């Protein structure tokens, strides 16, 4: 057995290759756990950041600065009574949250956290990702229908209409990014998620800056459509509490509800990682071709460690500011311990061998985290669209824009080729 594992560990395999089953399994477990932790962290961060935007404190009681609040919430949700409405369609009601979670998690099979850090390298990665992530609309419709209640049904219909219409604009933006991968000497494009990032590396430019402002517009369309796709503010109509109570998950409670929650947040992370992969250079560090030289190399070498040390410093600062009361002793120790853990991670990241291994994952996560912050920021700032306005934005603004960008990208991309074939003849 050990020899078997050892043979995998020593062989240098890329994701998706036939002998990589072992690593694929490891990555599935790691991603599953990592995603759950990320959603829990995201829960805390959203409440905390939103609170600070709104001159509140947010959770402060459970653990230092409410750090254990999401865990307390999870325990509460698990212990809650699991209510199924008497008139509900039991099997579909039971299936719906599982379906949504499955769709949200399956997407991560093709997400490349690094050139070798992925479960698999599918040659149709982008298509797979779009297809599977849109399956969650089916789960939402199932939930709304099976609840056998007014609000969930209307919420589910709204949600599916919204997801379907924004997927088209999203697709247009994605195609224009995929087309940019084919602008190399060989003219070979790719749909593989790893291939797309490698194309950005080879061309020496992130696709957001490619054919300025075409890449930027395509990115903008995707950035709007992905918020609508995940039913978040300002497009959170399926959950508009002033109109529909809680939308499709009105009748869900306890653990089933938390599955929807988990699915929503992992869907957010999933679409953010598509955006990062297609336009923001995936796992590449910022501006690898512009900010070159020893100084920048050193800066980006130290950066991951410094961020963690900064977080550790924040923890220690808060520890010092904790009230000097015996009741707060455990919280103070806990916060200091958390700071020590973060500081140790920061210090470990300064070791070149470790840093080489994890820097791709670090940069990818940082970019996704920026999108997560944007999601919270939108929620704190924008009012909610009305449904007809939402449809208008999707069909009348984003779709024509997407088509225009698609055609222009194709034209600009083919321009050198046309020059060669027409004028040089």
């Amino acid at each position, binding site marked *: 057995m050990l020899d078997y594992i050892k043979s995998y560990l020593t062989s240098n395999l890329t994701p998706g290759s036939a002998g990589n089953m072992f690593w694929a399994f490891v990555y599935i477990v790691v991603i599953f756990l990592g995603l759950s932790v990320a959603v829990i962290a995201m829960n805390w961060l959203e409440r905390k950041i*939103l609170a600070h*935007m*709104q*001159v*509140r404190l947010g959770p402060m009681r459970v653990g230092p600065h409410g750090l254990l609040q999401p865990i307390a919430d999870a325990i509460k949700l698990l212990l809650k009574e699991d209510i199924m409405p008497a008139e509900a369609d039991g099997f579909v009601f039971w299936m719906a949250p599982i379906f949504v979670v499955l769709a949200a998690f399956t997407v991560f099979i093709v997400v490349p956290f690094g050139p070798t850090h992925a479960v698999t390298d599918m040659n149709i990665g982008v298509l797979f990702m779009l297809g599977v992530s849109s399956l969650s609309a089916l789960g939402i419709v199932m939930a709304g229908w099976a609840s056998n209640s007014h609000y969930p049904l209307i919420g589910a219909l709204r949600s599916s209409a919204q997801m379907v219409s924004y997927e088209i604009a999203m697709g247009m933006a994605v195609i224009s990014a995929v087309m940019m991968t084919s602008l190399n000497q060989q003219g070979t494009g790719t749909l593989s998620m790893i291939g797309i990032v490698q194309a950005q590396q080879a061309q020496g430019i992130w696709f957001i800056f490619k054919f300025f402002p075409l890449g930027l517009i395509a990115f903008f369309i995707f950035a709007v459509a992905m918020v609508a796709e995940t039913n978040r*503010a*300002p497009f*959170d109509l399926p959950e*508009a509490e*002033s*109109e529909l109570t809680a939308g499709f998950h009105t009748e869900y409670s306890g653990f089933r509800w938390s599955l929807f929650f988990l699915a929503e947040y992992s869907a957010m992370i999933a679409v953010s990682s598509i955006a990062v992969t297609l336009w923001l250079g995936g796992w590449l560090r910022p501006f690898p071709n512009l900010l070159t030289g020893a100084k920048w190399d050193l800066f980006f070498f130290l950066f991951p460690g410094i961020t963690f040390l900064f977080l550790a410093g924040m923890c220690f600062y808060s520890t010092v500011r904790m009230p000097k009361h015996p009741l707060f002793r455990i919280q103070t120790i806990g916060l200091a311990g958390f700071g020590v853990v973060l500081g140790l991670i920061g210090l470990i990241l300064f070791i070149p061998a470790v840093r080489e291994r994890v820097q791709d994952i670090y940069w990818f996560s940082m970019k996704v985290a920026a999108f997560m912050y944007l999601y919270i920021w939108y*929620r*704190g*700032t*924008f*009012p*909610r*669209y*009305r*449904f*007809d*306005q939402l449809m208008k934005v999707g069909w009348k603004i984003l779709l024509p824009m997407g088509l225009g960008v698609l055609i222009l990208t194709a034209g600009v991309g083919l321009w050198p080729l046309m020059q060669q074939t027409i004028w040089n003849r």
Partner: protein
Amino acid sequence: MGDKAPHRGQHIQVILKDLNRLTDHQLWLGKHTLDIGTITPHVYTFRDREEILKIFEKYCGARLTTHAFRIGGLQYETYDGFEKDVKNFLTFVAPKIDEYEELLTTNRIWVERTKGVGILSGQDCIALGVTGPVLRASGVEWDLRKAQPYANYKNFDFEIPVGQNGDTYDRYLVRMAEMRQSLRIIQQAVDALPEGPIMAKVPKVMKPPVGEVYHSIEAPKGELGYFIVSDGATQHYLLRVLPPSFVNLQALDTMCRGQLVADVIAVIGTLDIVLGEVDR
């Protein structure tokens, strides 16, 4: 009777009334925006409203109802540092109103949600008896503080903000402008706060002459009128109150015609009603 409140009493009344107008508009803004789906302005307005409520609490002990108004003036003299508190509040709140406007006035989604929603023409307003900011947003320049000056509002320099289209966005703009005008009034009142008594000499037992009287003031939500019939006794024979929320709510039907269901929530929010006042 004719016992007018002394100068100082009237000034303090004006300060309290317009602080009250500010709290009302802030509460309205918070709840209205919350209905339309933005969750942040509501917390901001509550933060700033708290400062007014603190002044009220220090002045008379009650946070929401300033129960110091009496026939002939005020029951309580101001506490030490009242002027300073009000002045501090004015400098504190002026940039905060800009902050609300920054979040909303040019916000594309906010404008789309409110512009052209729940249009009420000036004629409709008058026919339905709608008063207050809702009436003024429809282009009718009618403010009882100017039209039938009570207290000593005629001594203060302020403008009546008026809208043009009578839609939800205009009502929002009118109320925001009214907040600024209220600040102006309070500033003038507190700058020129005279010395002297706060209460006129009023007999312990009052025997009003036989007859009836109607008097109304410009409450934050609209015209608040009191109709009193007296038979010469110390107690009133009949008392009827004209509440602005009850009257303004009648416009809901006219405003919702031809609108979407999702707009109803915006229209109810823009009327600024208190249901306790409606359901009596």
